[in-house]
């Protein structure tokens, strides 16, 4: 196949979005929704068909020059290498399944055209991020996904709560994007180019003093999109959007864009050990924080949102520990099991008619498909042995442990604690949702076919994706890592005995979490309402802290400037000028009598004056 076709991968979803935006309302429903699904599905097939071009150093395709000014030329470049190809496959594949799910989920929605157009536009922007070969093009996609996220969180904008959640997500991620933009411009100043392959090929050019600040700026940008500390509080509120949107944007793809950014620029990031440590630290803080918060949430989607934040924290930890392939592998498996969980949650909410996990009345027997797929997703999330999440989480924790003394081993300890908490809150969710109320579950509406069919399709990779990267301990050869790193030899990070010990420990952590959860939540108990659960449930009151220490001083400052400049300078000086002009106009308007004879008389006087003046001039000279 022609490598130029790589351009079609992002363009097909864009085409679907544009057709739906322009003609969507005039097309019959099956055609417009079908176009949306087809655009994404074709993009997936195209990624598979073009897979050979990803080998070696990848394929770089220049489309055309976006803009050109003196000395600066920004071409529209796509870079299709092992990393971007595998990410593109994941993004397009998961999007396809979620699009199919939406056919059922949106069956009663009148405004489906806007929904599918935005969803397609999002896939386009995400693919642009993934495949960008140029930092400015990447930033274009970066802003694009931010906009689509905003528009889709507030999709049901008639309710003010949803619109506000969208605004919050948009403003917080925008605030972080500024840091990314600064980092990009700084890199341009050093290298004189925006091209990612060029920059990564010449990382030795970068001055030693600049590298850590740049990495920290990149980290701040990544934190905004990936809902990591300290830009994390938008993610739980983003659950106001439709559930498939949460699955696609706020679990599988967009929130992992930050991880992808750091992986993409990893050769640059790896130059700065301090930067790596900061990335690992931020990841650990977010992972522990989110896991604690997830313990006390009452809404099924908020539990999943916090768990997403926690798992993305694991990915950051992996990047910070230098385990690039481990982080990407976890990103991969997380995309499968978390979108499975969200889509399952969509079915659960539909069946039980509410979002609150204390009032759910489902039973495993009454809803076997939903139960088993949800259980598979939960096991993978909790890191049950031999599921995909087990291997990917283990790979990250192992490389963190092997990274060296004290600092990283402390992070490893916190990471293991988070793994325990993850098992704890995951089984709490399962127990409360499926064993909460034994006598319910009758007369529930059925789930549409397109929603049901997707669940097993996602459950298979959620269960077995670990086989892609089976470690040597289980008789595998870590094929995914080898593919990503493009080498033939397995790196041995830890000795065989240590590996065995760590794996056993991971199994033990999972088992502990399960047992503790079983003890606490197996029998239904009334929702606890003490200070601790309120503290965790409100996310450590981070929003209130932001309100008090950032928003309130900012508003006071704004009020001060409004009084000082707006009212004094503009209100005093400039409105005085305006009043003066107005007053002089009042004086002059009396001359306009509207009577023709006055004007004619003035002409005559003027004439007399002019003639007199000329006469005087003539007589004088």
């Amino acid at each position, binding site marked *: 196949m022609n490598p130029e076709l790589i351009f079609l991968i992002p363009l097909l979803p864009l085409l679907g979005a544009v057709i739906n935006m322009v003609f969507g309302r005039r097309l019959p429903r099956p055609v417009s929704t079908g176009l949306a699904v087809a655009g994404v599905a074709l993009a997936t097939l195209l990624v598979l068909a073009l897979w050979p071009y990803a080998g070696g150093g990848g394929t770089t395709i220049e489309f055309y020059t976006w803009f050109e000014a003196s000395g600066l030329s920004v071409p529209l470049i796509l870079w299709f290498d092992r990393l971007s190809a595998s990410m593109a496959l994941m993004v397009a594949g998961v999007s396809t399944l979620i699009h199919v799910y939406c056919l059922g989920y949106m069956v009663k929605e009148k405004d489906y055209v806007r929904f599918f157009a935005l969803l397609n536009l999002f896939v386009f922007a995400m693919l642009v991020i993934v495949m960008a070969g140029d930092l400015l093009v990447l930033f274009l996609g970066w802003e694009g996904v931010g906009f689509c996220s905003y528009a889709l969180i507030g999709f049901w904008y008639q309710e003010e709560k949803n619109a506000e959640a969208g605004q919050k997500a948009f403003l917080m991620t925008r605030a972080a994007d500024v840091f990314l933009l600064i980092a990009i411009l700084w890199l341009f100043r050093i290298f004189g180019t925006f091209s990612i392959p060029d920059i990564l090929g010449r990382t030795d050019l970068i001055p030693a003093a600049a590298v850590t600040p740049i990495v920290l700026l990149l980290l701040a940008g990544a934190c905004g999109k990936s809902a990591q500390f300290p830009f994390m509080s938008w993610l739980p509120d983003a659950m106001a959007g439709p559930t498939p949107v949460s699955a696609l944007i706020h679990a599988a793809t967009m929130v992992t864009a930050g991880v992808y950014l750091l992986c993409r620029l990893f050769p640059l990031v790896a130059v700065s050990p301090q930067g790596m440590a900061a990335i690992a630290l931020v990841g650990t803080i977010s992972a522990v924080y989110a896991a604690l918060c997830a313990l006390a949430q009452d809404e099924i989607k908020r539990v999943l949102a916090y768990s997403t934040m926690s798992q993305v924290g694991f990915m950051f930890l992996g990047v910070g520990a230098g385990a690039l392939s481990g982080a990407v592998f976890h990103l991969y498996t997380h995309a499968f099991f978390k979108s499975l969980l969200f889509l399952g949650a969509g079915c659960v909410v539909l069946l039980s008619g509410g979002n609150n996990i204390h009032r759910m009345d489902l039973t495993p027997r009454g809803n076997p498909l939903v139960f088993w797929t949800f259980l598979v997703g939960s096991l993978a999330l909790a890191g049950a042995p031999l599921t995909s999440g087990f291997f990917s989480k283990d790979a990250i924790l192992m490389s963190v442990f092997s990274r060296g003394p004290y600092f990283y081993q402390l992070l490893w300890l916190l990471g293991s604690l988070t793994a325990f908490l993850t098992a704890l809150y995951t089984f709490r969710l399962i127990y409360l949702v499926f064993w909460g109320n034994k006598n319910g579950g009758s007369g529930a509406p059925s789930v549409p076919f397109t929603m049901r069919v997707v669940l097993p399709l996602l459950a298979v990779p959620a269960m077995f994706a670990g086989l892609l990267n089976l470690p040597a301990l289980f008789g595998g050869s870590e094929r995914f890592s080898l593919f990503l790193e493009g080498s033939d030899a397995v790196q041995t990070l830890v000795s065989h005995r240590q590996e065995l010990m760590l794996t056993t420990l991971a199994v033990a952590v999972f088992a502990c979490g399960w047992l503790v959860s079983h003890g606490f939540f197996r029998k239904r108990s009334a929702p606890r309402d003490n200070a601790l659960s309120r503290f965790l449930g409100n996310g450590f009151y981070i929003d209130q802290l932001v309100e008090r220490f950032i928003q309130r001083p900012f508003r006071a400052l704004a009020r001060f400037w409004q009084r000082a400049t707006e009212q004094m300078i503009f209100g005093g000086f400039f409105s005085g000028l305006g009043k003066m002009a107005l007053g002089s106009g009042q004086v*002059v*308007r*009396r*001359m*306009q*009598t*509207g*009577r*023709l*004879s006055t004007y*004619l*008389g003035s002409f*005559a006087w003027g*004439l007399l004056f002019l003639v007199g003046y000329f006469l005087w001039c003539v007589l004088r000279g």
Partner: protein
Amino acid sequence: MNIPFNHLLVIAFLLFLMGLGSILVRRNVIRVLIGVEIMLNAAGLVLVGSSALWSRVDGQLFAVFLMAIEAAEVALALALVIYLRRRKGTLNINAFNEMRG
């Protein structure tokens, strides 16, 4: 017989003053228009006279041009007069004072 240029200037000046007087004194729109015409003709007279004095054709050309413009102006002005007369029922120029500031 040659008319001295100064005589011509005096006549033109008198004509101009008559026109001006008519404009300033009269209240009837049509008389004001007549005054304007008289003033224009005074100017035309000076143009023709000076053309003869310096034996150059531009002055006469200009006079012809002036006549054409006058014809157009009168046509337009009379149309306006009819319109104004219909609106207010009078030709007194002080009745038309809608442009007062």
